[in-house]
């Protein structure tokens, strides 16, 4: 710390200029930043679930869909069919779209007398109402299209947009959205959904809300800072630190080409709380020392030496806490953790160099309101002191009770990876989703791939019969519907080849290879969606209405059971993949990564504080309050049924990172006071009244800042704001009440112990 002090005193202006230059450079690169919302981006690159998904997508032309539904309130009229067809054509021209399927371009196998035809269901668009009626008549006899391409009552038409595996999801989404909004401007009723649409909407809403709310967050923080310091620099310096670290972090990401993930959009809010904390503590000490008659230069030195060390310990612990997220197997959480760790490191460096350098360069302050007597705050601190000294056991007891209550509900916390729950019921996204679930059985598909292990293996009629039974069984599972495979194509062909006789609407008994020859022919190879080139494996596509993660798990378990019952003992190899499978995998990863990162964050905090404070006992004192905070956070989630999702799973880690600051500041001040007043209770009292101020300024500013998120239009962001606020208050109380109570209790036990020893 002496080095930093000397450095700051020697080159204050150079530090200021260098900081601003670096910030300017990184600020320029901040414009390069991109946000990636791809579901697969959340997984590690080599994750087997993603690799399987990609392999299947690659082979069968993409397993991720966007779904555009056109409302056709008058049924499939001439104009409705023309609109569907023009949409189909325009959507198909978008780069990154592999295929577009709608009622106007879908291929069918049609038979009449001794003629058979493989071709478009609608070869020519109708010009008259009679022709349109003919088409409706034709569709109503084809179970393959009802409830998949057209709703049963003909009031909605489905357009499935299949994306190429390597497509830029955002670009495709934008292009589709442009087309959709133009159609809607013409008075058409449209609904747009699908898992890529959901993630894009989430990113857009998150980004929009954060950009909209960040000025208000800043304003609230500024008001509280003004109340705390009553000086311009007291308001501006903490915010400048926040913005330098924010620009630095986002700019650095842009510079090295790292894209932000959907949760990294919460980064600004985080840096507001952590970055301002460092500045507040340093400023509060600076004013406190000056009030006691110490000169400006010396006050800066003292602040660096006394508070600076606490800031460094707190900073390193927080950086370690977030770096521990780097151990997560989930890419998004890993990236978020490392990025935030970097941001905090910047905030830390700027706080102990740029901030004191500015204080040295600026004119000396005239007022020191932050350190002067304040009736309200001091009354609160008096009460805290009283509680700590009189009832430390009650404090510890209450906390133990809360921990017990939390532990009881923690197993009941529900993980949730279904993004649809993020959207309000009345939102367009939710309405589109509900409609597609109700009319078309869902916007995502479960893919069951059965590999027979030998060329032409799927041509065995007995094998196909088993596939058929599996399909029927799978369709019986709630939320799964419309299974589709080569079996359905063969049934349709069989019927067509027998003069449209419904008695032949079944699998052919023999000669499958000959049937497949015809299916492979035609302007579009409909077979290639369902059978591989070697006729070795086939694909069953089942539509999946999206559900809560818990239900998805149950559904997948049943699918696996059925698959094993049919193919478990024979030589076939079955793979089940699709967006729901990735979602379920994501849920597992969130849980394991959550547990792992939390344990390591607490352990890190304990180890680092133990090393830096040169004692395991001290390390324990500093880390117990945050461990408690984390437990209580989960307790609150359990009791209020808040699901554990990608956003809320971050809060515990944030609590560790930020919460420890309060404890470390309190503890280092307590130790400093202990050197001057050997009496423990008096030292605690002093610490509560001095560092308590900075802690409460910080806690109030950050809690109020997080509460601004309650004005978000986006439920997960509101939940995040609320939980973070509560967590901030809990960590503050943990540091200010629990920590001193623990010290008192510990010392009383020890002295009793010593007394007993002495008397014996």
């Amino acid at each position: 710390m002496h080095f930093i002090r000397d450095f700051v005193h020697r080159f204050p202006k150079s530090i200021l200029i260098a900081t601003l230059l670096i910030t300017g450079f990184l600020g320029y690169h901040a414009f390069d930043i991109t946000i990636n919302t791809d579901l697969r981006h959340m997984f590690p690159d080599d994750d087997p679930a993603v690799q399987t998904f990609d392999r299947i997508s690659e082979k069968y032309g993409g397993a991720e869909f966007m779904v555009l539904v056109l409302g056709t309130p008058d049924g499939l009229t001439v104009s409705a069919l023309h609109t569907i067809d023009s949409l189909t054509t325009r959507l198909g021209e978008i780069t990154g779209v592999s295929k577009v399927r709608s009622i106007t371009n879908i291929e069918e196998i049609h038979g009449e007398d001794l003629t058979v035809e493989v071709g478009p269901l609608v070869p020519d668009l109708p010009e008259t109402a009679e022709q349109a009626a003919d088409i409706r008549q034709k569709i109503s006899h084809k179970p393959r299209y009802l409830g998949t391409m057209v709703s049963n009552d003909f009031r909605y038409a489905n357009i499935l947009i299949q994306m190429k595996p390597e497509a830029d999801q955002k670009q495709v989404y934008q292009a589709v959205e442009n087309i959709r909004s133009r159609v809607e401007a013409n008075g058409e009723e449209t609904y747009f959904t699908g898992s890529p649409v959901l993630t894009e909407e989430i990113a857009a809403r998150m980004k929009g809300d954060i950009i909209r709310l960040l000025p208000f967050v800043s304003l609230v923080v500024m008001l509280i800072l003004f109340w705390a310091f009553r000086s311009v620099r007291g308001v501006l310096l903490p915010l400048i630190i926040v913005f330098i670290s924010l620009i630095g972090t986002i700019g650095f990401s842009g510079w090295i080409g790292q894209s932000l993930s959907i949760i990294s959009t919460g980064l600004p809010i985080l840096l507001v709380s952590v970055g301002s904390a460092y500045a507040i503590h340093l400023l509060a000490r600076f004013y406190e020392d000056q009030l006691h008659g110490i000169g400006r230069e010396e006050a800066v030195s003292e602040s660096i030496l006394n508070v600076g060390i606490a800031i460094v310990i707190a900073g390193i612990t927080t950086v370690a806490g977030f770096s521990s997220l780097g151990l997560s197997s989930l890419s998004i959480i890993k990236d978020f953790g490392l990025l935030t760790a970097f941001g905090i490191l910047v905030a830390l460096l700027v706080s102990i160099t740029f901030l004191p350098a500015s204080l040295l360069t600026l004119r000396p302050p005239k007022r020191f309101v932050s350190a002067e007597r304040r009736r309200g705050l001091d009354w609160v601190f008096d009460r805290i002191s009283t509680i700590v000294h009189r009832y430390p056991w009650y404090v510890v007891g209450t906390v133990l009770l809360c921990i017990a209550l939390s532990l009881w509900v923690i197993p009941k916390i529900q993980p949730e990876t279904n993004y649809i729950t993020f959207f309000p019921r009345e939102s367009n996204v939710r309405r589109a989703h509900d409609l597609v679930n109700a009319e078309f059985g869902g916007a995502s598909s479960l893919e069951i791939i059965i590999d027979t292990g030998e060329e032409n293996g799927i041509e065995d009629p007995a094998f196909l019969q088993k596939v058929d039974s599996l399909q029927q069984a799978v369709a019986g599972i709630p939320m799964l519907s419309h299974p589709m495979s080569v079996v359905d194509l063969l049934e349709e062909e069989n019927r067509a080849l027998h003069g449209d006789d419904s008695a032949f609407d079944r699998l052919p008994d023999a000669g499958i290879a000959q049937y497949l020859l015809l299916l492979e022919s035609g302007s579009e190879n409909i077979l290639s969606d369902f059978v591989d080139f070697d006729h070795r494996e086939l694909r069953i596509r089942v539509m999946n209405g999206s559900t809560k993660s818990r239900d998805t798990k149950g559904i997948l378990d049943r699918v696996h059971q059925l698959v094993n019952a049919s193919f478990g003992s024979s030589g076939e190899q079955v793979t089940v993949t699709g967006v729901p499978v990735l979602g379920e995998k994501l849920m597992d990863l969130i849980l394991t990564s959550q547990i792992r990162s939390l344990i390591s964050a607490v352990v890190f905090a304990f180890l680092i504080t133990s090393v830096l404070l040169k004692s395991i006992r001290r390390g324990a004192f500093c880390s117990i309050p945050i461990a408690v905070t984390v437990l209580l956070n989960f307790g609150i989630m359990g009791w209020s049924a808040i699901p554990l999702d990608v956003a809320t799973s971050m809060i515990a880690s944030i609590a560790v990172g930020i919460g420890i600051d309060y404890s470390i500041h309190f503890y280092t001040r307590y130790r400093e006071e202990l050197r001057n007043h050997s009496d423990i209770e008096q030292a605690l009292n002093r610490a509560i009244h001095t560092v308590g101020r900075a802690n409460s300024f910080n806690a109030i500013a950050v809690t109020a800042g997080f509460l601004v998120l309650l004005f978000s239009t986006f439920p997960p962001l509101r939940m995040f704001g609320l939980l973070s606020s509560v967590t901030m208050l809990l960590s503050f109380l943990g540091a200010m009440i629990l920590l001193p109570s623990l010290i008192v209790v510990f010392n009383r036990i020890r002295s009793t112990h010593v007394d007993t020893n002495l008397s014996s």
Partner: protein
Amino acid sequence: MYRTYQLVLTLGLAALLPGALPAQDISAEQVLDRVENAITASSAEIHLRMELTNAAGSRRERSLVAYAKDSGDRGKSYIRFTAPADIEGTSFLSLEQPGGGEEMYLFMPVLGNVRKIAGSQKSGSFVGTDFTYKDLTMLGGGSYGEDYQASILEQDSGRYVLRLEPINKDITYQYAKMWVPSSNWFPTKVEFYDKDGQLEKVLTNTDLEKIDGNWTAREMTMHNVQKGTRTVLQMEEIHYNTPISDQIFTTRNMRRQG
């Protein structure tokens, strides 16, 4: 989706040799006429092997025999699979109609019966290959003049490069490019450009050989550059102008041979 409609071109299985004319200033239409005239043998019987390769490099093989006959202005063709065993006997028959257009029939041994195939089939892929029905059913000869308008893109002493613009609205190509050497008027390469003007398929004719006095490509490769797939036809046995009975080109024969 994109059709090679009517582009037999290359399946100039019955290339009459018009003789090595000097590459003088002739019009694009004249070049096209000479290419067309080169494919007017009265009949052909070809035994060929068909090798399909997908983008990943997997292969499938089929063998078939094709008969083509030109009786007056009505072309007839009959294609029958001979291997592998599970599709042996499956056959296609195509008969040109007097008023233009043609009729197509399919025979599947498992059905034991003949089915007529309705129109839109013919311009699509032939049994999953990169060739279309048209390509293979017009073995007896075809006419580009009806479907394409030609212009000369390049010419030098030995060859012409033609640009073929479809005038038949059923053809979804934007245009095709054809390389024709003036030595034998047998196209060596044709490139097909899709409706966006992107190269979609390339046909190359190799192992040119004179059989029964006709220039013939022993090997023809259609490469779909967009999908990465490839179909190679290898002519194993070719007989030109041998008498082929009209009885071959009947649905009764399909059933009998299946």
